[in-house]
């Protein structure tokens, strides 16, 4: 077995796939390590064509499944009988919660790039300057101009459907044709445009091919089946399995090794460089070492930081790159499950075709300058949502039961619309993850303990998120508008991030502006762990852009013999 490579990438999800692609395309012999099983595009999507009636429960998760995936099922929407094989078994992969923390994971090749939500938005300078402006935590070491070309590059490769509307806080991008809004989405859009000067209803931006094809393993246009999280036979949405990994594979430079649990980065104190990684084979439990000139940690936020914490040496007694003491701290997510919904009367003769993978998006309209700064909380939030026709309506209920009732329930019900806020969580030092060496997993590795909560700023923001949602729907003429603020715990947004933040100073941050460990420049962290603040938009696109940018930096540094 070859143990020496130019580069090692740990993880195959959104970030790892991108690191693999970029490094292999630049000619580096790259070992890509994945802790879970192999998942081949199409071949390993066993449920991709199933209808609800192919399941004895209509694809609703059973109690038997819940016993093994209680934590994975806390969203109430992500785990189904048709998707359960892409989520971990909580009993086999335990973690600990000082406060409730929802940690949804997929341990397999492709990671969560198979089941992700696919909403793809850019951060802006409102985000990159926010900590500095507010005096919160530390400043990002980069600005929008540093990452903008990489957003463009990534969007071009993966394919993102959307529409440019020229707003500084919702920047234009490199988009394929947008998904169509439906009749009732348009009602809200027109009403908001007429009644508000500070906000707009935009088309969602999702990583779906809506015209033409994209590189990878036969990626073609979306067929609007909305069975994305089972894996797509058309390769219509971006996943590592359909896109980056096959592209890396095609270079001949990639060695992909599944069932490889990386738990430590090996450090050479004399050279002040990392030399490789230690791996436990998940199946045989044999231990291996692999060596490389450069290492990309893309195992996703918590495992990446976990690996650094376990990488202890005389030089780094508290974990590699942890001279600041910030490793494991400042864990963030996006808080959500707060908003409003209402019924719309009219358009009974209208419908839609296709099960679209995204509806409307209302970009942030708080704290972006001028009057928008007049709030009792910092930062902002956006809404995702859409209208649809329900299954059966009040008018049908009046038919009670029987033959007429039966006929009516085969027809579309009333229109209704929901808008759900996604808000920024501030980076709090006290929100953290630690390792518990008294509770080991089946590989003898420490388990993770979470201790994090949302605080006053988020609670105030949630109040506004609900109020504004109600007001916008009522203003647009929706009936029976009801606000909601459902139970939320950090992690539920499945956007866990932070814990190895980027910064300008090695005394207060873990990574520099190029995602290198300040003190070990041949170790790059480019997944969610690197985030200095959370912004309020879905983060995967940013991880891809940061990864592509960092990989190209690493290649240049290798050429210059700097690392």
């Amino acid at each position, binding site marked *: 077995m070859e143990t020496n490579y130019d580069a090692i990438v740990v993880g195959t999800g959104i970030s790892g796939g991108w690191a693999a692609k970029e490094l292999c395309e630049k000619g580096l012999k790259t070992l890509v390590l994945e802790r879970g099983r192999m998942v081949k595009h199409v071949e390993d999507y066993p449920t991709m064509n199933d209808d609800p009636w192919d399941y004895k429960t209509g694809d609703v998760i059973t109690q038997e499944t819940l016993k093994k995936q209680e934590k994975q099922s806390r969203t109430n929407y992500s785990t189904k009988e048709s998707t359960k094989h892409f989520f971990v078994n909580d009993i086999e992969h335990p973690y600990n919660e000082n406060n409730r923390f929802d940690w949804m994971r997929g341990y397999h090749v492709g990671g969560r790039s198979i089941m992700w939500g696919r909403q793809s938005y850019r951060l802006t300078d409102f985000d990159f300057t926010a900590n500095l402006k507010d005096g919160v935590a530390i400043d990002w070491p980069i600005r929008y101009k540093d990452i903008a070309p990489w957003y463009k590059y990534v969007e071009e490769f993966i394919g993102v459907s959307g529409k440019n509307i020229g707003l500084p806080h919702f920047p234009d991008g490199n988009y394929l044709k947008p998904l169509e809004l*439906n009749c009732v989405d348009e009602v809200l859009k027109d009403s908001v445009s007429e009644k508000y000067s500070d906000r707009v209803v935009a088309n969602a931006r999702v990583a779906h091919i809506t015209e033409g094809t994209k590189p990878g393993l036969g990626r073609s246009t979306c067929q609007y089946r909305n069975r994305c999280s089972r894996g797509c036979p058309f390769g219509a949405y971006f996943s590592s399995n359909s896109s980056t990994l096959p592209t890396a594979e095609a270079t001949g430079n990639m060695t992909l090794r599944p069932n490889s649990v990386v738990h430590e980065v090996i450090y050479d104190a004399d050279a002040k460089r990392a030399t490789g990684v230690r791996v436990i084979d998940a199946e045989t439990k044999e231990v291996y070492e692999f060596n490389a000139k450069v290492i990309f940690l893309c195992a996703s936020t918590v495992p990446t930081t976990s690996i650094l914490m376990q990488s202890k040496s005389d030089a780094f007694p508290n974990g590699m790159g942890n001279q600041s003491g910030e490793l494991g701290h400042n864990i963030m997510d996006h808080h959500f499950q707060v908003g409003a919904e209402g019924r719309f009367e009219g358009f009974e003769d209208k419908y839609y075709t*296709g099960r679209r993978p995204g509806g409307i998006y209302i970009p942030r309209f708080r704290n972006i300058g001028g009057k928008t700064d007049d709030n009792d909380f910092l930062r902002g939030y956006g809404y995702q949502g859409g209208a649809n026709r329900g299954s059966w309506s009040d008018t049908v209920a009046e038919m009670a039961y029987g033959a007429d009732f039966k006929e009516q329930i085969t027809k579309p019900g009333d229109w209704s619309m929901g808008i759900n806020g996604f808000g920024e969580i501030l980076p709090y030092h006290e929100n953290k993850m630690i390792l518990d060496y008294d509770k080991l997993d089946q590989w003898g590795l420490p388990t993770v303990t979470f201790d994090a909560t949302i605080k006053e700023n988020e609670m105030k923001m949630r109040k506004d998120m609900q109020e504004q949602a109600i007001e916008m729907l009522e203003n647009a003429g929706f009936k029976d508008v009801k606000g909601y603020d459902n139970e939320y715990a950090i992690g539920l947004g499945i956007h866990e991030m932070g814990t190895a933040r980027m910064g300008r100073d090695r005394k207060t941050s873990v990574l520099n502006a190029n995602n290198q460990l300040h003190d070990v420049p041949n170790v790059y962290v480019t997944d969610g762990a690197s985030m200095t603040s959370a912004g309020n938009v879905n983060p995967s696109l940013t991880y891809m852009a940061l990864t592509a940018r960092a990989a190209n930096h690493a290649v240049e540094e290798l050429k210059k013999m700097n690392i």
Partner: protein
Amino acid sequence: MDRRKALRNIGTGIGAIAVTPTVVSLFQSCQTAATYTPAFIPAEDFEIVSNLMELIIPKTEIPGAIELKLPEFTDAYIAAVWDENQKASFTEGWSEFLAASTKSASKEKSSQLSIEDWDAQLAKYLKPGNDIPAEEEGAAKFANQLRSLTVNAFKTNEFIGETVMAYAPIPGEQRGCVDLMETTGGKAWSL
């Protein structure tokens, strides 16, 4: 029960005696009850539950609840999906419904109730505008729950999903605002 076998049985029935749709349903339910062992619903009550579901979704030009095996689906669904609290609540609601129905029909045992009696009870709880006595709120809630379960089973049924409602496993296109009648003939998408 095998659908073809069921149809053959019904055919025999029609040839032998003059039957009303209700009788056909009852006949089918007997067949069903005889061949299916429920996983959650008490075996002795399965026929009554089946008849109630048939009243909610009766046979028309398309099959009704019993022929579609909605009682079997619902029984398996509850057994597999619901937690112990939900199951206990269903069981309690069912007892209240049985007791209230038996009392309303002035019978001694629920097994003595006719289809007409069950129909009257569903009408009382499900048709709008009826005052429900406080002591029958549990029974009324149960009737609503049974209706929801029946609708869920109906809409999750392969025959209904593929041939009665508008079925598009691979839509191929996405359009936001189209004419309902032109697009699906007025039917809802099944997926």
